[in-house]
Structures are given as structure tokens and as C-alpha cells.
């Protein structure tokens, strides 16, 4: 049931992408997202697709597994699409009853849908191929300069890694409590909205109690090992760039350049290629 939510999960396997330094993947994802939203020419998304497709292929994460994660947010995507489609003012294409579809609405909706799905696939690719610990290590290292202006970088990344670490545990716990209550005849699936919300109480109360208990245990265990925040802490496995990481940075640069190039090119080309955001 709940295990079907693959968004933000780690997929264990061995691949070049998995072995990349987390900083590369963080920077890469950031650049990828920027590229998605700066670009406003349709043909550029072909470049984006080719890039994303090759990274997915390299990552050895089965496509089916990734798309299953998308199912969870399909509703959001459709909602965004429909809103954009009907609520954007402009030149009317079709109109029936009180609804009207405009040219601008259609193009915004399509662009937004493409951007959002690529955004989700791209960023879930990062979490699928990077363990939470690696991810926060990378983040801490990247944000290190901010320490100079007294941002508690270490503490923030510690909090993040603990939060990420607990997601699968809490999912498992939810699954277990749900089953235990179902064994007592609880019904989470039928009924109207209010009944469904009420049915969640026997799930949420034990879940919160267990979350607090776990948090307490963890705090105690950290205290017992004399944990104290950032200054002067060393790492057991410090992050170090390898050759492949520099190669990856190079590829990223190339990708950004390609996006920019195709964007400028197709902006100046007439015809079907020049379909762009209103």
C-alpha cells in the first residue's frame, strides 16, 4: 500500500550515478530545475528529455519503479493542468457552457505539465540514487561557506538527515498500525470524507506516540555518545571528488550550453519549431 510511494525513496543498486559525489548530484539537480524553468521554447525539451533519459538509463533504476512514484502526484499534475487550461485569459480557442479554453491557456498548461513532470522525475532521480546520509553530507559541504555568516549549517543538515532517515521507518510503522487496526475491523477505505477522517484517529494517535518515542530514544542515544554540534567535527568518510565527478560537471556544463543554444536557435526559427510559451 504505502510502499508504493517511491517519491523521495532510495533505490538500492550499483551504478555510475549512484557512485557520483552527492555534491555533483545536488548541483546537477539544481541546474536541471533552472534549465526547466528558464527555457521557453518547446524543442529544448527534446534536449532535456534526451539528457534525463540517458541519466535514468545510467542509473539502473527501472522506469516502472520511477513512474509508480509519479502516480501519487498524478492528481496534482492533472489539477495544475486543468486550472491552467481553463483559467488563463487570452484568445479563445474553444468555448462551451461557462468554460473556455484559450490559446495561451493551452500552451501554459502543456508547458507547466511538461515542466512539473520533468521536475518531479529529475529530482526523484536524485533521491533514488543517493542515500539520505550522502545527500545531507553533500548539502552540508556545499553550504559550508554560509557558516561565515553564522548559518548553523551542520545543525540544519543533521536535522534533514534525521528527518529523511525516519521517512521509511514511519511509513513502515504506519503500514503496521494500519494492519493492526484493520485486524480489529477498522475500515480506512469506505465512507464519506468525515468518516474517513475520523477513521484516521486510531492510526494517527499510535503513530505520533511512536514518533515521539523514537525521537526520544534517538536523542538519548546521541547524548549518550556525547554528540554536540558542528565545530571541529570530523567525518568518518569525508567527501572527495573523483575523476568521474569532474567529468559529470563537464557534462552538466555541456547540457546547459546545449539548452541555451537550442533555445536561442528555435526562438529565431519560424514555423512549427517556434512553439513557445505565450
Amino acid at each position, binding site marked *: 500500500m504505502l510502499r508504493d510511494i517511491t517519491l523521495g525513496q532510495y533505490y*538500492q543498486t550499483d551504478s555510475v550515478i549512484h557512485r557520483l559525489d552527492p555534491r555533483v548530484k545536488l548541483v546537477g539537480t539544481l541546474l536541471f530545475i533552472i534549465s526547466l524553468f528558464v527555457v521557453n521554447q518547446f524543442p529544448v525539451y527534446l534536449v532535456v528529455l534526451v539528457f534525463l533519459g540517458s541519466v535514468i538509463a545510467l542509473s539502473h533504476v*527501472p522506469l516502472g519503479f520511477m513512474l509508480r512514484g509519479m502516480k501519487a502526484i498524478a492528481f496534482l499534475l492533472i489539477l495544475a493542468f486543468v486550472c491552467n487550461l481553463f483559467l488563463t485569459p487570452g484568445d479563445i480557442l474553444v468555448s462551451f457552457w461557462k468554460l473556455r479554453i484559450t490559446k495561451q491557456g493551452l500552451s501554459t498548461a502543456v508547458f507547466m505539465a511538461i515542466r512539473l513532470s520533468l521536475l518531479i522525475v529529475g529530482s526523484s532521480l536524485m533521491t533514488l540514487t543517493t542515500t539520505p546520509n550522502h545527500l545531507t553530507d553533500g548539502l552540508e559541504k556545499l553550504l559550508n561557506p554560509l557558516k561565515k555568516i553564522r548559518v548553523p549549517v551542520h545543525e540544519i543538515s543533521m536535522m534533514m538527515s534525521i528527518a529523511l532517515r525516519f521517512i521509511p521507518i514511519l511509513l513502515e510503522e504506519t503500514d*503496521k498500525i494500519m494492519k493492526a*487496526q484493520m*485486524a*480489529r*475491523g477498522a*475500515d480506512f477505505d469506505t465512507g464519506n470524507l468525515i468518516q474517513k477522517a475520523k477513521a484516521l484517529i*486510531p492510526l494517527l494517535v499510535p503513530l505520533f506516540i511512536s514518533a515521539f518515542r523514537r525521537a526520544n530514544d534517538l536523542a538519548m542515544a546521541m547524548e549518550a555518545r556525547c554528540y554536540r554540534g558542528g565545530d571541529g567535527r570530523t567525518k568518518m568518510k569525508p567527501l572527495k571528488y573523483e575523476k568521474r565527478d569532474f567529468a559529470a560537471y563537464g557534462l552538466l556544463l555541456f547540457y546547459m550550453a546545449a539548452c541555451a543554444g537550442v533555445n536561442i536557435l528555435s526562438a529565431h526559427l519560424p514555423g512549427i519549431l517556434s512553439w513557445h510559451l505565450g
Partner: protein
Amino acid sequence: MKKEPAGNHKETMEIRLEHVNYIYGGDTELAVHALDDVNITLPAGQFIGLIGHTGSGKSTLVQHLNGLLKPTSGRIYCDGEDICAKDYNMKKLRQKVGLVFQYPEHQLFEADVLSDVCFGPKNLGFSKEEAEAKAKAALLQVGLSEEYFDQSPFDLSGGQKRRVAIAGVLAMDPEVLILDEPTAGLDPKGREEILNLIRKLKEERGITVVLVSHSMDDVANYVERIIVVNHGRIMFDDAPRKVFTHVEELENMGLAAPQVTYIMKALAEKGAAVDTSAITLEEAKQSILEWVKGNKA
């Protein structure tokens, strides 16, 4: 105060598993074949021990018995009806087959003990009064007297919480009671209390009981049939005495025979004429006493 038998059980409830397979995480690299061609029949009124090493598939197996998990392949029949059929009444099944999870106290959520135990019967559609009557009977049967009814379940001791949780399932009047490691995390005294309680429940209600455990010592004293699982497969399914003759195979699975069996074997090796098939402390005592008397005579 006289206790009324809470269940009006029929001695018909039979659960049959045919070629049941279960795979977790089917299409990922992490797929786990948790059950492998399981064929068993649980007739009404038996006291069954389900034994296996950590991760052998015990919990997975028992979750099939009340339809919480659906077999990846294979069939499960309850009173001859296929429980995977689309129109099968799952609520009815969950009422008939009560499952007490590992660490059941983690599922308590109500403000007081009585309301928590009422949760099951209320879900089954009983009125408030009926549900409370059932809950009270169940609580008394697990040995929690009226002074506990209004207390918060979170203020109780570990053993008491577990009793409340067991009562929560018992209040639904199941015909089959399955307990997944009911003694996990309890001290020796608490363990014995819970196990004796389960035996008492079995006798008073005449229901089928499936006791899941990885400790032979826990089970040997109580059950009439032992099912041993290893890597999702049924390895032995027989009377305890017969199962414990396979000491070596059991040890290879990370299990062990009861401690008295080892003592009796060691004694026999030293030349004592004792019964090596003794599996409970009481039997062992008898056998040793007889041998000592025989020596004196």
C-alpha cells in the same frame, strides 16, 4: 463473580492454505520471497505453535490467515470459502480470525482502557452497550479487573498494556486467535503469565489458537502441534515430541529444541536410562525420578 463464556463458537472453523506464495516488493531488485509453496490446514480447536527463526516468514504467514495480505499465488479457504474471492466478506473474516500483532500495545489509542477494547466490537457494528459488555468480559478474562477500565492505557505497565491489546482482539469473539510473538520484550515472569493466560483462554473459549514464537521453550509446554517455518517454507508440521527429534535440522535453522531435551540427551549419553523424548520440565522430572528410584531398588 461468575464469568460467562464470551464466545458462542461453532466447532467448524477450518482454514486451509494451498500452494501459497508471497513475494514482497514484487518488481524491484529487493524482492523477497517470503512464503514458498505453503500448504497447511488449521482445523477447529487446535492449539498450534508456529516456530521459525527471525525473518523466516511467520508474521507474513499469519497475516494471510485473516486476509491482511493476499497471496501472490495460491488459494486460502476459510470454512471452504475462498477468501480471495471478490465478494468475500473481509469484516466477517477479521471477526472470526483475531490477530494480535507483535508488540500489540503500540496500537492502543483511546483515552481509557475500556474504550480501546470497544474499538473492535464497535467496528463490527455492535451497539455501545453490547460492545461494552463484550469488552468488559474480555478484559476480565485477560485478568484486568474493573479498577483498570477507566485508566489511560498509556499509564499501564508493558505486560498490562499487552493484556489490553489482547483483550481488544478477544472482544470481537474470534473463533481463531492468532498471537504473533506475544511474549516479545517481557521478563520471564511476564512471559509465563501471558502464556498461561493464553492456555486459559484456549480452554475457556474452546477456540483455535496459533502461537507464533521463535522460542521452543515457550511453545513446548503448551501446544499440541508445531509448525516450523524456515525461509518461507514449512519444514516440519507434527506433534512437538516428533518435531524435537530433529534436533540437528532445527539447529541448522537457527532454532533449538527445548533445554530439557538437551539435558535428557546428555544424561542418556552418560548412561542414565531416562526418556530422551521428554519435552517439558514436568516430564523430565518424572523420568529422572523414576530412573533414580529404579537405581535404588
